[in-house]
């Protein structure tokens, strides 16, 4: 035998033995170490200091820190505690606006301008005082970045005519609109769009190529909010600390620091909530139901403004016949859907608006599950149920949409109507709803949509989904707003929505929206499936946590404090 070869084998065996011993040794060492200082994860999550840290997981990455660009919930969770608006919504009454950075306001007679009297003792995180020019600068920046770069949230305030806005004095600003737009005040309280950013910070980092300092502001933050950015580790976590100069002050109980790690899987968040290593869960319905009743965990069901709808293409036979659409509306089992899909949490929607939104009509008629009626209507329309074959598109990854689709399919089959299910991605829906021909009769028969509010005004729902720009060309998909997936065009409704957008008389607006809801329900361009309440899951030591239905997915951290939690 070759000595050299023998040596190599011995060397190899030695290496393996060393590796095994090292692995075993480190395990033994570590288990000793963990036993001695158990449990390590609870001790080392946060440094041992007096300050109170709230740990809130986020479900996705922060794409940008620029408030003019952010238009997704995971990103906005970080934006909202830092950047504020002139007005905010009252969490208990969506029609009521709370003065925030603006102390009071006046509305011009024709609704073309608004004067805001601003709060005086407010400073940005960098120390620059907040004033009228900051308001105009922020709006201008958001709208300009939308026009230049295609950032989404700017559309919420696109009615503003920046050139004609005036600074009356440092704390009074006149905001002029391009056209009368009654939802404007509500749009100004939205969490996306009208956020106020520090002009000094932006100007200091502006370059000729980047006049709005987007490249800088997408990685830095400077607002007036209660919390400031301390650390942003991409794909990992964000830490916010309290702004010591916050204009509302820090009397009372609050948290000093908010630590937001990314935990994408709801099941992982659930385990962490159960072991108490996070304070707020943000769980899916299934996981929330599973932890319900666990000592130390609170599961709260609160109304939200989220609605689920199935649109029917009103330009395409047989759904262009109102009676057929009504028949389909009678086919769906609304109560069964709430019971089985929502586990009883939620309710059948009454009309196109959510019940928690102002302007909703509590007496609006509702379709019920009535197969006999459905058959009668089909007969009246001149169709045999067997002749009706429809395709229903939904987003595959949204479990509830799939189950709603299957339920409709099963119920329709009972009377002989065929509904074929077509699962796709959110992005894929675009292709079937906006066919290349531009003709609505080539678009999908039916499609499911979840709607959450951009701002709490019925206009955000009705004008986005049931308005028609050009009544003379109803089969052209470009005659409709993007989300009018039913290609529904009704001139009476158009006139009502137009008037409701113009008049600043609140009572009149409510009246008009009630009329609109009844017209829509009668014409049945969509099935109004259910209202989805929000589900809050958190440890019982978290106090002051509430849900504002107008602010989807974001949390008012300023109101939260911790009581009775063992130090981590």
């Amino acid at each position, binding site marked *: 035998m070759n000595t050299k070869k023998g040596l190599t084998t011995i060397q190899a065996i030695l290496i393996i033995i060393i590796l095994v011993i090292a692995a075993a040794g*480190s395990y033994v060492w570590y288990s000793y170490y963990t036993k001695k200082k158990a449990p390590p*994860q609870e001790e*080392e999550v946060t440094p041992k200091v007096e300050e109170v840290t709230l740990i809130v997981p986020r479900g996705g990455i922060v794409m940008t820190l620029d408030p003019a660009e952010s238009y997704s919930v995971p990103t906005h969770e970080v934006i909202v505690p830092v950047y504020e608006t002139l007005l905010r919504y009252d969490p208990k009454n969506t029609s009521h606006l709370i003065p925030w950075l603006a102390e009071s306001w006046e509305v011009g007679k024709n609704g073309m301008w608004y004067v805001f009297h601003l709060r005086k003792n407010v400073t940005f995180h960098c120390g620059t005082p907040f004033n009228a020019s900051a308001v105009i600068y922020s709006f201008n920046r958001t709208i300009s970045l939308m026009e230049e770069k*295609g950032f989404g949230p700017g559309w919420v305030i696109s009615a503003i005519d920046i050139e004609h806005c005036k600074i009356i004095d440092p704390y009074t600003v006149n905001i002029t609109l391009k056209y009368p737009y009654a939802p404007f005040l509500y749009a100004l309280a939205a969490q996306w769009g009208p956020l106020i950013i520090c002009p000094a910070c932006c100007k200091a980092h502006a370059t000729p190529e980047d006049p709005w300092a987007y490249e800088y502001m997408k990685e830095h933050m400077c607002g007036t909010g209660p919390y400031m950015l301390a650390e942003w580790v991409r*794909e990992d*976590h964000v830490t916010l600390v309290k702004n010591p100069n916050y204009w509302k002050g820090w009397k009372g109980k609050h948290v000093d620091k908010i630590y937001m790690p990314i935990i994408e899987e709801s099941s992982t968040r659930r385990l962490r909530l159960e072991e108490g290593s996070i304070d707020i869960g943000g769980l899916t319905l299934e996981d929330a139901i599973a932890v319900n009743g666990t000592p130390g965990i609170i599961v709260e069901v609160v109304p939200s403004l989220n609605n689920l709808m199935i649109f029917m293409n009103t330009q395409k036979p047989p759904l262009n016949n109102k009676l057929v659409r009504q028949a389909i509306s009678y086919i769906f089992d609304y109560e069964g859907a709430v019971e089985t899909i929502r586990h009883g949490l939620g309710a059948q929607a009454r009309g196109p608006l959510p019940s928690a939104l102002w302007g909703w009509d509590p007496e609006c008629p509702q379709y019920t599950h009535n197969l006999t009626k459905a058959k009668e209507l089909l007969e009246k329309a001149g169709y045999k149920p067997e002749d009706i074959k429809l395709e229903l598109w939904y987003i595959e990854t949204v479990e509830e949409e799939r189950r709603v689709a299957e339920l409709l399919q099963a119920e329709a089959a009972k009377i002989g109507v065929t509904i074929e299910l077509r699962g796709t991605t959110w992005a*894929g829906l675009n292709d079937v709803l906006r066919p290349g021909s531009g003709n609505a009769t080539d678009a999908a028969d039916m499609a499911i949509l979840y709607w959450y509010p951009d701002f709490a005004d019925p206009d955000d729902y009705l004008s986005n989904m049931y308005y028609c720009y050009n009544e003379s060309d109803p089969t052209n998909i470009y005659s409709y707003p993007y989300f009018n997936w039913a290609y529904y065009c009704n001139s009476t409704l158009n006139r009502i929505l137009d008037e409701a957008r113009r008049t600043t008389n609140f009572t009149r607006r409510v009246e008009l929206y009630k009329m609109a809801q009844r017209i829509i329900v009668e014409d049945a361009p969509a099935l109004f499936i259910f209202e989805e309440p929000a589900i809050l899951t958190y440890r019982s030591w978290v106090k002051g946590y509430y849900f504002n239905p107008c602010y989807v997915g974001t949390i008012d951290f300023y109101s939260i404090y911790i009581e009775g939690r063992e130090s981590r």
Partner: protein
Amino acid sequence: MKLWQFILRRLILMIPLLLGITLLTFTISHLVPGDPARLAAGLHAPPEVVEIMRRRLGLDKPLYVQYYLYMKRLIRGDLGTSIMTRRPVIEDILTRWPGTIELTTFAMIIIILMGIPLGIISSTNKDKPLDHFLRIFSLFGVSIPSFWLALLLQLLFCKYLKIFPLGYRIDPGIYLKRITGFNIIDSIITLNLKALLNSLWHIFLPAFTLALQGMATVQRLLRSNMLDALTQDYIRMARAKGLPERKVIYRHALRNSLIPVVTVIGLMYGGMLGGTFIIESIFSWQGLGRYGARAILNLDFPAIMGTTIMYTVIYAIANLIVDILYAYLDPRIRY
């Protein structure tokens, strides 16, 4: 041919491979129905705004023009800007790839350290209860879906037994100076024992999940190869000349049975890279797999392309290393 010539040739051959991969990925990802411009602008954004976004992302141009522009930038080393993270894909990849390499390499070590001994034990105890037990174990290992196993292990070890952490590469409170991006290496360099132990503690469960299938495959393959080898004439010869059984097994049978195992292990590296897409998502592991999975869900073309290219390079290099290892294991093979 000398070894360096062989390596050089293989590296040059990677260029057409990468070209093919980019063309394929580019075409497939762009043929998937969908509108990344809408996703980037925001779901409720009006169509005009989405159009501006589309132009900015260059998605309004014909596909071949988009590919040409992409390749032109790629040659200069520019992988484009990710739609979802809004920063250069190359930066995203550079911060994430150590996580994936660390995880797969650790899993590979588990496969080798456990799969090979188990295969030997199984073959030397042929048809005995221990062999049966190990065969059932390996059947379980090969057939169990990794995403299910991951959740099960999380439930068992993290929730009930509380001996492993739920996810992440290191506890958030532990400070580790980033030098190479590999937590284990960085903590050794900086002599940070706490970070080293914590990283090992974090990596074990995801790496074990990733390794189980490979471990079982190696065990089964080695067992059958060993059984085959043990009936060969040279073994009979070795036994006849009075070599101790241990030497017969380790020096003669094992060494001859290892070559197909090394091939499989090399290919397995590719399989494991694919597995990281799921494992990293479940264990909140900061690596390329989780990044790639998210890129696909968001139709983030530049990120999908960047991830694919990176995975191809890693896979090709892993295969190259296997080929070099052959020479060590089997002196008959020369390049």
